């Protein structure tokens, strides 16, 4: 039954209005509620941003054979010494279809019989980039969403759309990473860095959410020492100032709270912020409350000595130093690195440090929400060979991400017995938008694809799609099933807000736990039910 004001009016005026209203789900019942951080939901979110605007079909392809013939260029030798593009006979299901949904389809550029091979056969060199998704059977928790309208073709605006669901020059809703960190805070209070950005660029914006949900920037272990350690050995200015003790904690309004481990100086500074409450207006008090809570959190964080925790936590434990597919070491590939061409191409190692930090943060169980800005390549090419180049870069980057997820799959989740780190983490991979399709130039295009993997995600599903009729620059998004915020089922093209909403729903948030201006829906089929 569709929920509309007319229907509500009828319900109001009916003799059995309460019963009717209950059937709409507006009297407190929420048929889809799981509860933030419930036992069913993953306990952390990892978002991975691939900058510049990628072309999603370079690895995962939902098109028919006819569409591939029309819209994917014929295979060709690229400037980077690899072959770009594919034909329809190279596109294969990642695994058999699941639950009546289309399976994820991947464009194979490797030797099916020997996936680690870099041999040149019939003038074409095998390229294993992308095979990680097969090697680690990542389809088991994988959903691709195609045809998402970012409603903008500007970089910053598209990035913000991906982060919070609403395109614009500035955030008009908190970044979903912060929303999730805030929602999980009470369930995982011992995570001292609830929200983390592993790069200083594009840090998630918490807007008006509590300070605890805003992102801490932790680009590297080396950077963390001067920022998060109160050890005089590392930071001499703590000499004599790091004596801590448990002290009675107070909320900003004055009510007693839980005890906190603070130095005398930290206790004094938080108390100072609290004591001048009411000296100005409510907005200033809100600012003071953020300062009060933030300073208290910093003290607690320093007390936890997260630097030592991170230093003592291994990052990579399971992946071999040399990338190995199908039991064969891939020549020129490293643990996360990959190489274009053979001897004359350098190994792309830019992801190593960031991935290492992400793994340590997860394995040490320090964070509920981690945002990663992929450092290696910006896909904003705008050149005659841009699509070719990006074809390879996207495959390289996604292969590297696949290996990261492989490591997560092999690692037990901390404090969640029986689960792997992959099971316990929702992974969202996105860019700010897509690119015009290869025969249509190399420019920005707002209709794109997003990738969900890991905890709470259904197995091997390809959702949404592209309306390739009358292509002009790029496609429109095809209609897909959503549960609107009214909790009514609908079929319509997808938009950025739906991605943000679906992320929140997979993390166990209810519709009333977050707000995205302009409306939103949960994409049906992403969440494992």
């Amino acid at each position, binding site marked *: 039954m569709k929920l509309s004001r007319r229907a509500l009016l009828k319900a109001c005026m009916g003799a059995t209005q309460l019963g009717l209203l209950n059937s709409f789900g507006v009297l407190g019942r929420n048929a889809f509620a799981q509860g933030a951080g419930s036992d069913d939901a993953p306990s952390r979110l990892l978002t991975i941003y691939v900058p510049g605007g990628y072309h999603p079909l370079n690895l995962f392809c939902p098109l028919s054979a006819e569409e591939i013939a029309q819209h994917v260029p014929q295979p060709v030798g690229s400037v980077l010494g690899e072959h770009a593009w594919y034909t329809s006979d190279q596109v294969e299901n990642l695994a058999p279809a699941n639950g009546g949904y289309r399976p994820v389809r991947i464009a194979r550029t490797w030797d099916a019989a020997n996936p680690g091979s870099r041999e040149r056969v019939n003038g074409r060199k095998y390229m294993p980039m992308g095979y990680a998704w097969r090697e680690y059977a990542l389809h088991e928790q994988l959903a691709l969403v195609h045809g998402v309208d970012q409603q903008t073709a500007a970089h910053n605006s598209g990035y913000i759309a991906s982060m919070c669901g609403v395109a614009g020059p*500035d955030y008009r809703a908190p970044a979903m990473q912060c929303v999730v960190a805030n929602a999980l805070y009470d369930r995982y209070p011992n995570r001292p860095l609830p929200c983390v950005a592993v790069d200083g*660029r594009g840090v998630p914006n918490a807007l008006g959410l509590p300070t605890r949900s805003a992102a801490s920037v932790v680009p590297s272990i080396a950077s963390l020492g001067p920022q998060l350690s109160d050890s005089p050995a590392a930071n001499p*200015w703590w000499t004599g*100032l790091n004596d801590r003790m448990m002290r009675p904690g107070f909320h900003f309004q004055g009510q007693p709270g839980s005890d906190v481990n603070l130095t005398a100086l930290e206790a004094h500074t938080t108390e100072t912020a609290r004591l001048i409450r009411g000296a100005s207006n409510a907005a200033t008090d809100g600012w003071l409350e953020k300062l009060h809570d933030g300073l208290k959190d910093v003290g607690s964080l320093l007390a936890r000595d997260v630097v030592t925790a991170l230093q003592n936590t291994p990052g990579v434990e399971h992946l071999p130093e040399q990338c190995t597919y199908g039991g064969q070491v891939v020549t020129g590939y490293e643990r996360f690195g990959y190489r274009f061409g053979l001897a004359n191409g350098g190994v792309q190692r830019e992801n190593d440090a960031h991935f290492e930090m992400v793994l340590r943060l997860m394995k040490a169980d320090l964070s509920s929400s981690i945002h990663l800005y992929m450092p290696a390549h910006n896909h904003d090419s705008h050149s005659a060979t841009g699509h070719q180049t990006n074809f390879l870069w996207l495959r390289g980057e996604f292969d590297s991400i696949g290996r990261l997820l492989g490591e997560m799959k092999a690692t037990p989740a901390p404090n969640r017995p029986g689960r792997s780190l992959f099971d316990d983490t929702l992974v969202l991979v996105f860019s700010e938008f897509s690119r015009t399709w290869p025969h249509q130039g190399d420019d920005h295009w707002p209709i794109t694809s997003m990738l969900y993997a890991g905890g709470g995600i259904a197995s091997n599903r390809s959702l949404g799609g592209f309306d390739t009729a009358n292509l002009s620059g790029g496609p429109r998004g095809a209609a897909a099933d959503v549960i609107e915020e009214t909790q009514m089922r609908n079929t319509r093209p997808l938009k950025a807000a739906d991605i943000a909403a679906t992320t929140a729903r997979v993390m166990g948030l209810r519709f009333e736990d977050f707000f995205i201006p302009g409306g939103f829906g949960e994409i049906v089929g992403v969440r494992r039910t």
Partner: protein
Amino acid sequence: MGLRNIVFCAIFVLGCSVGTSTHRGVDSAGKTDIQSLDMGPIPADGRVPVDGKVPVDGVAIRDADVEDAQGASDGELCAENRNDQIRLALAPQCASCHGTGTNQPFFASLRAFEDLLVYNPTYVDRDNPEEGLLLKLLQGRGTGTYTQMPLGEASFMTLAERGETEITMDEIRAWLSNLAPQTSRRGPDRSAPTTRRLKAEEIKRALLAQLGLDEERDFIARVSPRYAYSTVELKGPLPLYSEDRAPILSRSRDKTAAERMANLGAPGWLSGRKRSNELTPSFLQTLVQVSQAWCALAVGKGEGGVLFREVSPDATSEMSADDIRRNLHYLYLRFIGDRANENEIDALYGDVFLHYEAHHGSSTAWQAVCAALIRHPRWLSY
């Protein structure tokens, strides 16, 4: 209260609380059916008599509106008064260019709509509405840079004639002819945020000046030939340098100085990072460290520095309590820019100075006092 108002109340309570939509604003599918909403006579204050709020698209809504909504939220829009109804009805054509963050944010809020547009004689001539710029622009009769609104192929009037707007020109004229007196207070909003924290550059400048530090002397080790060019090496505890500041510094191997500056909210224009004046965890983590590190440097300068005007750096509370308190007053005035009351000095002296003096000596105590003043809300705010 008649049946209509009872229904209004019921719809408001339920409709405006469905899902998360307690917001006002324009939903992508939001419909505001002014035409079908018979409000009756408008009170002199322009406020509608339904608990101060009215759902603008609840009753007698056109069937097409319901069916066309395609299952979206049906626009849970609650107008606060007649002006707000008009604002919401105009919004589909106007808000995308005149919303929050634009240079003419008429549609950012009801208050913005009233203050910037409705009661602004530049746009609305209350004695002769037809000659006001607002109506002229909507009709395509403007004479300035912009001759019509919205921009594009058709003016609002043309769109309205096609039935593509949610309010007709006649309804707009009727609203302007019977414009209620402005009830919202003009001028600054006393409830608006007036406190912001210092910007990163302001923090750095204030620290250097108030701590008596010198950037060249205290944070730059040498300028010497290295490779084919001169380079600057940073020194001292936790230097702060913007990544945009000087190309020569960007070649320094110490990237953490720029990271710290970014944590304090400095923009990185070359890397596309905007300024942040939020109280983020990274900001506070960095401030805590920098305040202690730079205070240690300043205290270490002893009597050659600026922190000890009223007392010797190694004076003890046992011998020189009054001098210490006088120096606390001096430091408070130096850092906060205001005179401290005795309660504040008591807290600084008792909770901070005496505590650290007893355990670690006077240098540590002065370092803690200094850091406490830098973390003081009044130091951090502007």
